[in-house]
């Protein structure tokens, strides 16, 4: 049983982690692509249209990867989490079915037109198809996070005698207190990834001394979008989300912050340290006194509950994993704001393109928003453990009863192999597009 659950969880974690590398770029990037097309319509400067085409190609490749790795996600609820699907399908099936009907049809119908239809449609309608794809992908994110929010903070349901959850309030799914902060946080974070990718490739072209005019355009656009989005990720959305966790999942909050023992006279904020779960302490700790109480409650001396206040069977199952995921996310998020502030400052002084070290920094920072997004999701998901539906349905009770661990291991190996192949192909093709660069504007 234990082993079965382990492989079921591994397979879901692996496939969702790989899948989300792509949508986190495409959701934000669709907005930037539409922005370039809009600038072209406004200014009639062909650079903007070529920039649209260039990013459209990268978008299309990422989108295709997102689609092919996304279908296994919908299937896995039934294949590996059959008991969970049976009990909660009455509710989460609703939002997932809506995602298919409202956003996938929208995206897939207009993607072909957006990619191949510029000549047939004309620029204005080409812009509109881009906007529709952007809308579709943001709607998809919304419905997924509505599903996620219900699992974190179930609302609008009742439980029948046979253990099944049934919906009794449709609107409640969309007014869930968990939903809006999570959604905006996630979308802003997606825009951070796209901003860093756009800025990073811009910096690459400037440093390479090729396609320099595009390099400058990309870098400039990336840092402006990047500053706005990285601030929104922290304030207000990240802050609101953390306050939700404190209020509704205090045990998760304690594990995230690495608080083993209740701190009655105000809690310190841990910047660095390795949790030692067995002895219930942090090694090599660097912390600032009372700041956590202030950030959480607006008061320096308020008590913050530690893990010792909660029964052990309610503790998150992977406390150190959760602690690291959260700290990596917060650390990187802070770094992103710092870099973006500096870059915009240099931009206003007209020094950005000459600040060599900052250009190199942008080049090497490209992978990090992906790490921050991934660890952010790990924080949410590991933080929800040991529950599938918080406080109501345990993860151990949700797996498929008839699928043996051997079968799951077999398909997990299949996914690892297949995704390794897909990853390599993706790297080759995206590398080729970047190497070729945007089409130069004919004088």
């Amino acid at each position, binding site marked *: 049983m234990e082993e079965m659950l382990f492989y079921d969880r591994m397979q879901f974690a692996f496939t969702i982690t790989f899948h989300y590398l792509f949508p986190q770029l495409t959701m934000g990037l669709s907005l930037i692509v539409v922005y370039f097309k809009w600038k072209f319509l406004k200014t009639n400067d062909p650079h903007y249209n070529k920039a649209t085409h260039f990013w459209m190609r990268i978008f299309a490749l990422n989108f295709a990867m997102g689609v092919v790795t996304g279908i296994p996600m919908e299937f896995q609820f*039934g294949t590996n989490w059959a008991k969970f699907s049976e009990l909660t399908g009455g*509710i989460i099936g*609703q939002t997932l079915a809506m995602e*298919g*009907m409202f956003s996938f049809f929208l995206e897939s119908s207009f993607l072909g037109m957006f990619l191949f239809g510029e000549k047939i449609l004309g620029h204005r309608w080409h812009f509109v198809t881009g906007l529709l794809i952007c809308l579709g992908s943001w709607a998809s994110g919304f419905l997924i996070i509505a599903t996620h929010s219900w699992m974190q903070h179930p609302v609008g349901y009742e439980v029948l005698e046979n253990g099944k959850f*049934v*919906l009794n309030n449709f609107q409640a799914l969309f007014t869930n207190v968990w939903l809006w902060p999570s959604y905006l946080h996630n979308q802003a974070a997606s825009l951070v990834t796209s901003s860093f990718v756009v800025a990073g490739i811009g910096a690459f072209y400037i440093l390479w001394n090729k396609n320099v005019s595009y390099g400058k355009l990309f870098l400039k656009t990336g840092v402006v979008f990047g500053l706005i989005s990285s601030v929104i990720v922290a304030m207000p959305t990240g802050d609101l989300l953390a306050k939700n966790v404190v209020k509704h999942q205090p045990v998760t909050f304690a594990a995230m912050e690495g608080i083993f023992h209740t701190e009655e006279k105000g809690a310190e904020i841990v910047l660095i340290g390795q949790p030692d779960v067995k002895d219930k302490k942090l090694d090599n700790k660097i912390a600032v006194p009372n700041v956590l109480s202030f950030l959480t409650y607006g008061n320096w001396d308020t008590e913050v509950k530690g893990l010792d206040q909660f029964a052990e069977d309610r503790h998150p199952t992977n406390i150190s994993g959760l602690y690291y995921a959260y700290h990596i996310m917060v650390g990187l998020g802070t770094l992103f704001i710092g870099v973006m502030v500096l870059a915009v400052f240099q931009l206003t002084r007209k020094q950005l393109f000459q600040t060599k070290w900052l250009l190199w920094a942008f080049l090497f920072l490209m992978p990090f928003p992906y790490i921050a997004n991934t660890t952010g999701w790990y924080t949410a998901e590991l933080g929800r453990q040991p529950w599938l539906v918080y406080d109501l349905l345990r993860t151990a009770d949700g797996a*498929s009863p*008839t699928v043996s661990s051997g079968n799951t291991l077999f398909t997990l190996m299949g996914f690892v192999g297949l995704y390794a192949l897909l990853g390599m*192909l993706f790297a080759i093709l995206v590398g080729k597009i970047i190497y070729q660069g945007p089409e130069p504007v004919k004088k």
Partner: protein
Amino acid sequence: MEFFWYIVLIGILATYLVLDGYDFGAGIIHLFFAKTEKDKKAITNAIGPFWDANEVWLIAAGGVLFYAFPTLYAASFSGFYLPLMMILWLLIFRAVGLELRGQIHNQMWEAVWDKAFGIASFLLALFFGIALGNVVRGVNLGMVNNGVATQEPHFFFLPLWNPTFSPEAAELGIIDWFTLFLGVVSVVALMIHGANWIIYKTNSSLNSQLKEVIFKMNFVLLVLVIVSLSVWHIIEKEPFHNFLDNPLLFIFPIICFVGLFGLFKVKTFKKDGTGFLFSSMFLVGGFTSTTASIFPVVLPSTNKVNPSLTIYNVANGDYALSVGVYWFAIALALVIGYFIIQYKVFNGKMDDVGYGEH
């Protein structure tokens, strides 16, 4: 309410069959008949801008199944675990084959993705037929062994095959002679369907040859259909009782046979789209007749301990099902709108659309 969502689900699946069906069929034609670069291009152009939207109907079917009949979704997806995972992998190969082929101009690269696309399409057509066979034949619900259920009454698990390949064995497998037979029917029918689509959407040099292929394969299909009807009673004891109780249902088999016989006139059609219409009729008629014959059962039980799964014992609550009608109506109107726009923009022959070229 259950009945309404059952009709929706069957409608979505039938649409999927017609739309992605021509993609699979085109893939099979591509695998066996497309020899020149020009013909290969014509085929990929004919389905390129559509396959992605077509595949969404499968996702929509999965979503509606999950929402309207959660118990059926949970039971069948875990029970048919292995074949579903393989279908997922094949769908990935089909998509990658189509999308990556044009990205690099190199003979080996193109050859690899041509085969990935063709073989994946062929196997998908086979698997979907096998899947339908499994739903008709039923499974050992509750995994009853010596009269005792070892699982909850709706759960089961099937290996890919058993040593006897018999649909009547005590221990069933996904692939037996009956389901494999339906798989072959599906391959032949979709091959005809795909050929009709290519004729409809391209001016390729294959078109006249394809008409010949359709004509011949249609004979094969007719024989397969007759054989399957004559062995059907082994699997399902009273396949016609629903039709006799409610003669209106005969409309479905009639649609099916009109499609089948109509295609024998393929060489005389004036419009290139007529053949596609007939093969769509065959597919939709055949699929709906099959589901109508087991209604209201959606997954029969092969043991006497546990009852079959019907739309009534696997459905979501009434409130959830009613509230869905509102958003579904809006969504469906939008989807129809998208399709009209899409087919208007990519109207007519597709030879020069330049799909997959960068």
